[in-house]
C-alpha cells in the first residue's frame, strides 16, 4: 500500500521531467557524467600495471554481468549457459580481426566489439527461439544443455575453435585511427571503458522502457502479463536475444584484451562465474551486478594469488549470499536506504557499532574455517611439500594436533559468540527503524 502512495506522490516529479528543466536534465545525466569522469581518472589514481589489467577485466565483467542480469534479474530467466554468447562473440571477433588483418580491410579496432555483439545477438536468436519456449526450471536446464552442447562442440570443431590452444590475433595490426595502435594496455583500458559506459547506458535505458517493464511483469507473473496482452514467450525471446547481444560485446572486448580466445570461454566455468558475479552483487537492482562484477574480478585475481583453493571460498561466499542475503550485496545496502532518507544519523551510528560488535566473532569464525580448509588441503594434496604451512603470515605445523584444536575452538567459539551478539544487531536494527518511522511521521 505504501508503494502505491509513494508512486502517486512521485507523479508530479515525472510530469516535471516531460518539460525538461535544468535540474531534471542534471538528475538524468549527472550520474553518467560522474561515472565517465571516474572511468577517465581511474588509471591516474591506480598506476601499477597489474591494476590497469584488473580494471580492464572489471570493465568486461561489468558488461557481461549486466547482460546476465537482463535475464535473471529483469526477466526471471535463470541461465546456466550465458557464456555461450560471450564466448561465441569472442571467437567471431577474433576471426573477424584475423580476416581484417589478412585482407587489410579499413576497419579500426574500436569497431570490433560490434562484431562480437552481433554474433551474440545472432546466436541469442537461434538458441533463444528453442529455449525461451519454457521458463523456470526447464529453461535453466535447457540453457545448461545448450551450454554443454556448444562447449563439447568446441572440442570437436577444431578449425573454428582452435582446439585446446584457442585462436589468437594481434590487435595492433588493424587500421590505426587518431594515431592509436592499441598496443599499450592503457589504450585498451580506455577502449573497454568506453564500450562499458555505452553498454551500461544502453542497458539502463532499456530497463526503463515499457519493454523493460513488461519483462519485469513476465518475471513476476507471466499469466497476468499475458492478460495485459503481451506474449510472455515473445518478451522472453527478445530479452534473451538482447542479453546475447551485450554478452557478445563483452566477449568481443575480452578478445581484444587477451588477443586470444579459447574453448574455456564458452564453457560452464565462465557461465558459473557470471552467475556468481551477478548474484553476489545482487540481481534486484541495476547497481548490484556492477558491484558483483568488480568484487568477483578482484577476488579472482587476489585470492588466486594467496591460495590454491580460492574457488572453494568463492563457492562458500556464494552459498552464504544465497542463504542469508538473497538480494546480494546491493540488497543489503538498499535495506539501509530508509534510514539514510530519514536522516536518522544517530541510530545509524548505533547500528554501525552493533555491526562492529558482531563482526568480531564472525571474523574469528572465518579465521577458524580458513585454517581448517588450508590445513586439510595442504595435508591431503600437497603433503610432499612438507607439513608446515603459512596462514596469515603465521607458520603452522599441520601434522600436529594443536592447530586442529585451535581451528575447532575458533570455529565453535566464533559461532557461539556470533549467536550471542546477533540479537544486539537485531535490537539496534529494530530501534533504528522505529526511530526512522517516527521521524517520517513527524515530517
Amino acid at each position, binding site marked *: 500500500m505504501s508503494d502505491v502512495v509513494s508512486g502517486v506522490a512521485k507523479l508530479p516529479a515525472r510530469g516535471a521531467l516531460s518539460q525538461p528543466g535544468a535540474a531534471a536534465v542534471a538528475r538524468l545525466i549527472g550520474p553518467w557524467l560522474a561515472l565517465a569522469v571516474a572511468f577517465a581518472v581511474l588509471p591516474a589514481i591506480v598506476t601499477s600495471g597489474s591494476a590497469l589489467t584488473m580494471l580492464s577485466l572489471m570493465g568486461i565483467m561489468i558488461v557481461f554481468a549486466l547482460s546476465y542480469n537482463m535475464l*535473471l534479474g529483469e526477466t*526471471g530467466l*535463470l541461465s*546456466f549457459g550465458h557464456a555461450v554468447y560471450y564466448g561465441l562473440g569472442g571467437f567471431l571477433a577474433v*576471426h573477424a580481426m584475423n580476416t581484417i588483418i589478412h585482407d587489410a580491410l579499413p576497419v579500426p579496432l574500436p569497431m570490433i566489439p560490434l562484431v562480437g555483439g552481433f554474433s551474440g545477438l545472432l546466436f541469442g536468436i537461434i538458441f533463444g527461439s*528453442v*529455449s525461451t*519456449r*519454457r521458463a*523456470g*526450471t*526447464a529453461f*535453466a*536446464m*535447457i540453457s*545448461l*544443455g*545448450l551450454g*554443454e*552442447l556448444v562447449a*563439447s*562442440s568446441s572440442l*570437436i*570443431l*577444431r*578449425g*573454428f575453435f582452435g582446439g585446446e590452444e584457442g585462436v589468437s590475433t594481434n590487435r595492433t595490426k588493424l587500421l590505426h585511427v587518431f594515431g592509436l595502435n592499441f598496443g599499450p594496455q592503457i589504450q585498451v583500458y580506455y577502449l573497454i571503458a568506453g564500450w562499458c559506459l555505452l553498454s551500461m547506458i544502453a542497458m539502463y535505458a532499456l530497463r526503463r522502457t515499457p519493454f523493460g517493464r513488461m519483462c519485469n511483469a513476465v518475471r513476476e507473473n507471466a499469466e497476468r502479463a499475458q492478460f495485459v496482452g503481451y506474449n510472455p514467450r515473445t518478451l522472453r525471446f527478445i530479452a534473451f536475444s538482447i542479453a546475447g547481444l551485450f554478452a557478445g560485446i563483452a566477449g568481443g572486448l575480452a578478445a581484444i584484451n587477451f588477443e586470444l580466445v579459447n574453448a574455456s570461454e564458452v564453457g*560452464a566455468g565462465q557461465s*558459473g562465474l557470471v*552467475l556468481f558475479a551477478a*548474484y553476489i552483487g545482487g540481481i534486484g537492482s541495476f547497481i548490484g551486478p556492477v558491484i558483483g562484477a568488480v568484487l568477483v574480478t578482484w577476488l579472482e585475481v587476489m585470492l588466486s594469488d594467496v591460495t590454491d*583453493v580460492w*574457488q*572453494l571460498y*568463492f*563457492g*562458500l561466499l*556464494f*552459498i552464504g549470499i*544465497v*542463504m542469508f542475503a*538473497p538480494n546480494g550485496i546491493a540488497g543489503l545496502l538498499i535495506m539501509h536506504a530508509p534510514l539514510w532518507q530519514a536522516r536518522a544519523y544517530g541510530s545509524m551510528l548505533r547500528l554501525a557499532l552493533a555491526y562492529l560488535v558482531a563482526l568480531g566473532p564472525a571474523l574469528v569464525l572465518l579465521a577458524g574455517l580458513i585454517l581448517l*580448509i588450508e590445513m*586439510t*588441503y595442504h595435508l*591431503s*594434496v600437497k603433503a610432499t611439500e612438507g607439513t608446515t604451512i603459512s596462514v596469515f603470515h603465521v607458520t603452522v605445523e599441520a601434522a600436529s594436533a594443536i592447530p586442529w584444536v585451535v581451528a575447532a575452538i575458533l570455529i565453535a567459539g566464533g559461532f557461539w559468540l556470533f549467536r550471542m551478539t546477533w540479537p544486539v544487531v537485531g535490537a539496534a536494527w529494530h530501534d533504528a527503524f522505529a526511530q526512522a518511522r517516527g521521524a517520517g511521521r513527524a515530517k
Partner: protein
Amino acid sequence: MLELVTISTLNGVLYGMLLFLMASGLTLIFSMMGVLNFAHASFYMLGAFFGFQISQIVGFWPAFIVAPVLVGGIGALVERYGLRNVHQHGPVAELLFTFGLYFVIEEVVQMIWGKGPVDYRVPASLDFSAFTAFSTNYPAYKMFELLTAIAIFAVLLAVLTRTRVGLIIQASLTHPHMVAMLGHNVPRVFMLVFGVGTGLAAVAGVIAGPALVTQSNMAGLLGPILFVVVVVGGLGSLSGAFLASLLIGLVQTFAVSVNLSVADVLGGIGVAPPAGGPLSDLWNVTVAQIAPIIPYLLLVLILIFRPTGLMGTREH
C-alpha cells in the same frame, strides 16, 4: 555385427539403468519439493569417493552399504539445515543453493583427494569374466552393476506403490497440505526423500566408480546428462525419466561404436564434401566423436517437437 549389437545393448542398458538410479531420486525430489537438485551428480561423486576410501579400510562389500548411508545422511542434513532455510527465498534461490553446493562439493573433493583419478578397483571377488559372447569376455562386475541397478529399481517401485510409506510419499507429491492435516510430518517426509534420493545417487557412484574413472570432474561430466534425462523424460515424470535414461544410455553407447562421418555418407552417394574452410571439421567428424553431444542434440530436438518432454504433462 551381432556381437557388437549384443554387447552394446548390454552396455547401453547398464548405462541407462545407472542414469535412472540417479534420475529417479532427482525426479522424486523435484516433484515433491519443486527443486531440481543441481548437486545430485555431486552426491554420486561423493558416493564413489566414499566407496573408494571405505573400501581401502574395510573392503568393498561393507563400503557398498556404508558409503550410500553416509552420503544419504549428508543429503538429509543438507535438506534440513540448508534447503529448508532457503525455501523462503523462492525457487530460484533453492536451485542456486544446490548449484553452489555442486561447486563446493567439487572443490572439497579436489581439496581432499586431489584433481587426479584415485585407484578405485573392481573387488577381487567380482574380477572375473561372467560369460563369453561371440569371443568377447563380458566382465562379471558389469553384470553385478546391472543386477544391482535392476534390484534397486524393483525395490523402489515396490516401496512406492505397495507400502504405507510409499503411499504417504505419493500423497505428499500432490497434496502436501492434506497429508499434513492427516497428522504426517511432511517436512520429515521431504527430508527422508532427499536423503534416500541422494543415497541412491551414491549407490550409483559406489558401483560405477571402479568401472569408470573416479575423479573430481565426474560430477561435472555426468550432471548435465542427468538433467537432459529429466527434461527429455518430462520434468517430474518417473516413467519418463526411466524411458529417457534407457534411450540416452542406448543411443550414446551405440554411437560410440559407429565410425561414420558426413563425408563418408556423401562419398557413398558420390558427392564430394566442400574441402577447407573453418567448418571443414563438420564433414569429417565421425558419429563416435560426437557421441558426447548426442544427448544435448536430443534435448534440442525434443524441445522443438515436444516441449514438455516425452511423458511430461505440466508446464513448470
